[in-house]
């Protein structure tokens, strides 16, 4: 396993291992067979594991998730691919009213080990519906777990952990980072829902996940040239959030900026700000600030750079936080 892999390949290997390790694991989705998925995450898997385990489905997302639930009831462990973020909504009812609630409704008698993989987020110059960040919907939904890796190692191990989980997991893949390379280790170093301090610092804490971790790293590197030491927490898990790690950091730095691509209004930054203000009230030297998308549909790609948080917008927020 060990070696430099890009995120796409690290995910592909994670699916392969999961198929090898558990005969009940099946993959389902549109174009995941011969094509290997539009991002090639399932490349070669149908060839090696057969059409019975790597299943090209009819073009109907509610049908995909609904039948995955049925397969889970029969003892299978389905891993569903939604082709792009914007196409998960036809399955929203099955996810929210069925998948998320089945275990509770059955008083624990049945389990729902279903992983829903979704390439999400913008920055690839795509047309409408192909660049959205909808993690807030899923995070607000009790019964779902929601995670998003930011690098190849996490992509690999978090996906394997998600598939092994007996709960439904929404697995958000930062599509603009699919081709970023990194070392994939021989074993996972963290449990699925633990955050990680990516970079230690003292002046403020940047909190991010998925595609925005890299932007924060760039911002922190730039800030360092100005003598500012920014700490970065990669949440990895969006629901539940590893508040212990985040709070410890914010109590040290006294300032926090949450960065995500999704719209700020009612986004994950709101929850982090609310919670951190409550738990770190006497430590905060500035309000928790939020950098994210605007309250607007994801725009045409020629203006997406304006919509997406970048190094400058993160540093602008850092300035504002430090000015308090």
């Amino acid at each position: 396993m060990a070696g430099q892999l890009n995120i796409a390949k690290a995910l592909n290997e994670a699916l392969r291992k999961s198929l090898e390790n558990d005969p009940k694991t099946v993959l389902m989705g549109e174009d995941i067979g011969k094509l290997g998925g539009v991002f090639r995450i399932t490349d070669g898997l149908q060839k090696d594991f057969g059409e019975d385990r790597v299943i090209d489905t009819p073009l109907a997302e509610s049908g995909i998730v609904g039948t995955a639930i049925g397969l889970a009831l029969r003892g299978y462990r389905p891993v569903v691919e939604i082709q792009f973020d914007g196409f998960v909504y036809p399955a929203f009812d099955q996810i929210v009213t069925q998948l998320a609630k089945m275990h509770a409704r059955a008083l624990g008698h049945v389990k729902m080990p279903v992983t829903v993989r979704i390439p999400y987020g913008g920055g690839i110059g795509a047309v409408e519906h192909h660049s959205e960040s909808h993690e807030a919907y899923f995070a607000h939904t009790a019964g779902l777990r929601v995670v998003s890796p930011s690098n190849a190692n996490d992509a690999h191990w978090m996906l394997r952990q998600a598939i092994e989980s007996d709960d439904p997991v929404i697995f958000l893949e930062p599509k603009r980072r699919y081709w970023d390379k990194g070392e994939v280790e021989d074993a996972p170093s963290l449990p699925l829902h633990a955050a990680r301090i990516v970079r230690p610092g003292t002046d403020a804490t940047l909190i991010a996940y998925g595609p925005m971790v890299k932007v924060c790293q760039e911002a922190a590197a730039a800030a360092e040239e100005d003598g500012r030491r920014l700490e970065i927490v990669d949440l990895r898990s969006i629901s539940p959030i590893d508040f212990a790690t985040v709070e410890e950091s914010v109590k040290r730095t006294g300032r926090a900026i949450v960065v995500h691509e999704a719209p700020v209004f009612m986004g994950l930054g709101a929850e982090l700000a609310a919670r951190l203000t409550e738990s770190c009230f006497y430590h905060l030297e500035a309000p928790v600030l939020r950098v994210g998308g605007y309250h607007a549909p994801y725009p045409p790609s020629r203006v997406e750079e304006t919509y997406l948080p970048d190094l400058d917008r993160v540093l602008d927020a850092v300035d504002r936080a430090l000015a308090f």
Partner: protein
Amino acid sequence: MTVKSTTRARKKAAPAVPDNLRTGAGAPAELVQLLTPEGERVEHPEFPLVTTPEELRALYRDLVLVRRFDAEATSLQRQGELGLWASLLGQEAAQVGSGRAMRPGDYAFPTYREHGVAWCRDVDPLNLLGMFRGVNHGGWDPNEKNFHLYTIVIGSQTLHATGYAMGITKDGADDAVIAYFGDGASSQGDVNEAFTFASVYNAPVVFFCQNNQWAISEPTTTQTKIPLYRRASGFGFPGVRVDGNDVLACLAVTRWALDHARSGNGPVLIEAFTYRMGAHTTSDDPTRYRLTEETEAWKAKDPILRLKAHLDKEGLADEAFFAEVEAQSEQLGLRVREGVRTMPDPDPTLIFDHVYAEPHTLVDEERAEYEAYAASFEGGENL
């Protein structure tokens, strides 16, 4: 010929709306029937059925007990013991006939009205009532009874059934699945997606539509212009319309369909043509939208009376039998009444119990907060 046979006719005249869709009286055409409303046994060339007197008596017992349970639940709701009840009155034959067609390894996915099927799957009636009392959202282990939880979101269980059936195929097993749904549900996208998935994967699932003529206040004509069983043909699998008030026909057709499905021939749609004799639920007031005459006319097709007439006519059951069934019925009523009245309320912390199968920090935290809060009341009275 290029165009579907109906096309030309339509080109000239306005599309004909089949008059057998809504029937106040008179049997609709194209209906499999093995027992007339008068209790006469008739043969259907395609659905032969051989029954012993014991079997007929057992079916009768099922019908009576299921109706009794249902009546008991309705009155428990009126007494405030249940929050709501969805009565199956009138649909006993469709449910018992199809329920008894299942083999032990078969699996049923119900809506919220399949109390008769639950009975056949040996689910404790008190378990069903827990949900309507507000004690839980479904109190039984689906895998123990091969009977899934009730599903309220219309149509969504048809996809679960299809997925489950896909799993059967993968397992190489010869079980089959029944997905129950209503005439109203036929309009939902999910039901039609289930038809597509079942058809292309050749899944061993029988779609059992109880067309009880109403979706709350909407007659079937709000959902479709043609008989519902014909929907299947557009997806490439067979559809059959059966007299839903004829327990024998429902048994024979469902048994055939399950065998068809389990033998690798793919899905079947059964439309059981029946009638919802009561309100939609205890919250509903059908006098606002339908005529008493319609309901009255359907009384003549009562599923229990017709089997009773048959037993009488053929001398297949004696007074002792009917008395025994009556006694069992009384006993069931008593057990249900007492069971419901003494059903304990759940502990409030049930809220946190099964949100996830594995530990979850936020749920643990909120549970702890709640417990501390509740304990802060004198004597922890809120707990």
